[in-house]
């Protein structure tokens, strides 16, 4: 891995992975690899997850009752676990999204004036 690559990569903030997972499976149930790929693809590869860390996060969300898991078949025709948003998860996603927007907006408001002055 080159240094340049390292610099471009943005480490996920604590807790944001959960939000991204929830958002990703809002569109429909998906298995682990698909979720990881979707996050990277939709962020134009800016957000790089150590893909393995996805799984503990999925387990965490199941434990909280925000997503559920069901067995299904992958594109390879193998048995795979599909993760699906629950009603509770949907509510959580709405709440988390608005919280995140507020947060991002606030940060942006603080940062922007400085940029303008320069």
């Amino acid at each position, binding site marked *: 891995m080159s240094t340049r690559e390292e610099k471009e990569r943005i480490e996920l903030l604590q807790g944001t992975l959960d939000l991204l997972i929830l958002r990703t499976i809002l569109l429909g149930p998906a*298995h682990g690899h698909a979720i990881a790929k979707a996050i990277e693809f939709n962020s134009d590869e800016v957000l790089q997850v150590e893909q393995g860390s996805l799984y503990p996060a999925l387990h965490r969300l199941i434990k909280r009752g925000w997503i559920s898991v069901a067995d299904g078949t992958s594109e390879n025709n193998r048995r795979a676990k599909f993760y699906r948003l629950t009603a509770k998860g949907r509510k959580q996603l709405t709440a988390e999204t608005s919280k995140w927007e507020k947060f991002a907006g606030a940060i942006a408001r603080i940062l922007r004036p400085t940029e303008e002055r320069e």
Partner: protein
Amino acid sequence: MKRGAKRLLNDLDREMREHIELATQENMTRGMTPEEARHAALLKFGNVTRVKEDAREVWTAVWLEQFVQDIRFALRGLRRTPAFTVVAILTLAIGIGANTTIFHAINALLLRPLPYPDHDRLVMVSNYDSKYPRYRGDVSWTDVAHWAAANQVFERIEATSRPDMVAMSSAGSGERAGVQHCSVRMLPLLGLKPFLGSVPVDDKTETEGTPGVALSYEFWQRHFAGDPKVLGHTIFVDTYSAPVIAVMEPGFDLFRTGPADIFEPSGIPNPAESGGKDPRWVIAIAKLKRGVSIQQAQAAMDVVQQHLVQEFPEAYKGLGVRVEPLQQGLFGWSSDFLYLLLAVVGFVSLIACANVANLLLVRADSRRKEIGVRVALGASRIRLVRQLLTESIVLSFAGGLGGLLLSIGGIRLFDLLSPIEIPRTANVPMDARILLFTFGICILTGIVFGLAPAFHASKNDVNETLRGEGRTTGSVSRHRTRNLLVIAEVAVALVLLICAGLMINTLARILHTNFGFNPDHLLTAQVRLAGDKYIDSSDPGNLDLNLIHPPVALFYRQVLERLQALPGVEAAAFVDWLPLLDLTSRAHPGFRIAGQAPSLPGETPAISLDSISPDYFRVMGIPILRGRGITEQDSESAPWVVVINEPMARQFWPNQDPLGQVITFDSSPDERPRQVIGIVRNVKEYAVERESQPRAFVAYTQLPARTISRWTEARVHKSLVIRTRFASKEMLESVRKTISELAPDSAVFGVTTVQQTVSDAAQDWRFLSRLLGLFAGLALLLAAIGIYGVMSYSVSQRSHEIGLRMALGAQPSQVLALVLRQAMILSLVGVLIGIAASFPATPFLTVYLYGVEPHDALTLTLVSLLLIAVTLFASYVPAHRAARIDPMETLRHE
């Protein structure tokens, strides 16, 4: 764990494999070779083991699981190295035990609430001399009466004396007993009831006191064998006879003033009756009204006191009043001392921690390989540190448990050693606060001594270790940590040694002070006469006067005759109170000098007064400087005379010849003018470190029969002094028997050598120097072990280098010097730091020092040399081992 979760975790492996499989395929479609594709997918996925563990962590209280695992692992590890484990636990147990012991005293006296209802509303009201506002002064019954009359802020204000040792007798058998006077409503105020009988509480007893006394449960058991018929029985106490009206609960100890045997419920007099000067010897305790703060009470009392100063300037001028929480009032004075001790044991614990940390560092070195393997297998650094810290916390808890056990003995020892004034605390049970404190100390020490080794161990370079390079060099930084720890140990030990040295120096100076008399070959015994035969206080018209009957003087004459007839006795005499005897009450009446204008009211000079037998000065070896002493010729019918000491001569007749002056004491209406006939040398009276006060001596035969009750005690208490021909411990028993036979119904006690009395007078210093000496000794031992450990380790690490040196021609003596030099440097740096640290530290001791400066150069030098010598000695063994290294052996080892 739920079943669903278990399945999820079980399937995780397959799931991850599938994930990596898909990623690999994807990479291959981007044109990578299969190997590249797989490698990239794995890299992107991250550490599989870690993922599994993290996922597990979601479902379990993993930290707990890991904690249990860590503990089990730690226990296994510790069992494998029993020598290390025992030394570490013992070291910690000593450190923690010492802390717990001192904290127990602090807890019992200062933190634990007093066992009375509404204890948070109880306050102490005390006087203070505005010149010395820091000190708490006792109050008088009159003060309490005045305050009660003007009171707006207290529910009640009551008073109690401290237990006073007097004689009691009942049915012909006498005993020494502690009497405590306490106001009638004190018991209901504290929610206390007698065990047997009752103390009548009404308006009459409230001002006049009850016409009877209460016994403590223990005294009732001891003297009356728990006989319930004791109620109504009349006993003689101090100077009067009184019926027993009640027996208190077992263990009754009013405010930890020390258990009293007899309680006299006293009345708070009507202030209109006295108003004048009344001796201040009781403590006032009040209960705040609900909602009144201490500050409000203080402000209200300040106003009351101002009025009193205006109304009775003679009694209240220059006197402030203080309202403070009861506990602070009772024991606040001891907090400086106790916290000083806590600081000292804290230092000892620090050294113990440093030692264990060093041991752990050495141990960590031998475990480098194991740790390296764990890192390679994916153990995170935090996880490793946690594991190693768990190990040290397991150690510290084992040490804490040992410390708690040690402290049980330590608390008793502390009670045994501690000066009389510090209330006993051994009977106060350990409570949650102590356990919490010890728990806290365990965690703290565990982290303090565990953190450095844990971080060092986890900083392992995996590659180096696994390649086996980690042979035995030990990193530079680890060496530095170890050296720093030892230097710190030496420095802290030195500070403690200096403190102990200063105290021991003080003690030595005190014991070798010139007391003004010769304590060698001198025995003493205290006798206190009790019974109506000796004292008559029943004259109802004149409560303030006591009548001393002729049998008193007769007894004194007889006891001297009998004692002088004992074989081995050279001479015997007596005085009211032996100098340096630990009895607080002494007679100090006022007096008038003939020919001088009468002093202003309230400014009558007062001095200590003793009555003596003719031989007293000779037996004690107190030189008569001018004039003559008391002789047999000074009988009741001869002109009354008085002998004074130097300070009295200096203070009252600075420009005149005191001899021939005439003074009259006010201790009795029947006192006669006395002519000064002699001046004697100063004697240390109250305490070794205090200057002698003006003092006068009169013949016991020249005393009036009637005496003001305040000074009655002096008439019935005598300290006998007996000069023997030989070293005389064996004679103590025959002396005691002789006196007891003459006065079976009185109290004979304190039969001992005068040397012992003198040495008891230094007990505060003895306590401090023993305690500090003990802790400093511990610190020295621990520091020596520390140096030994580091040097041994260093020698074993450098055996290769040393072997090489020797192969190249170095002599064993040079090697010896090499190692010793290294130890010397450590120890010298430690000593220098210690000396520097002692400069801000020792001034805290100043109040406890006598005749020694806090930076006494001699003490400092001697103690430093001692420490250096001990550390050199400790490093001699490893140095010697180094010098015996066989170069061939070590080189072949390569």
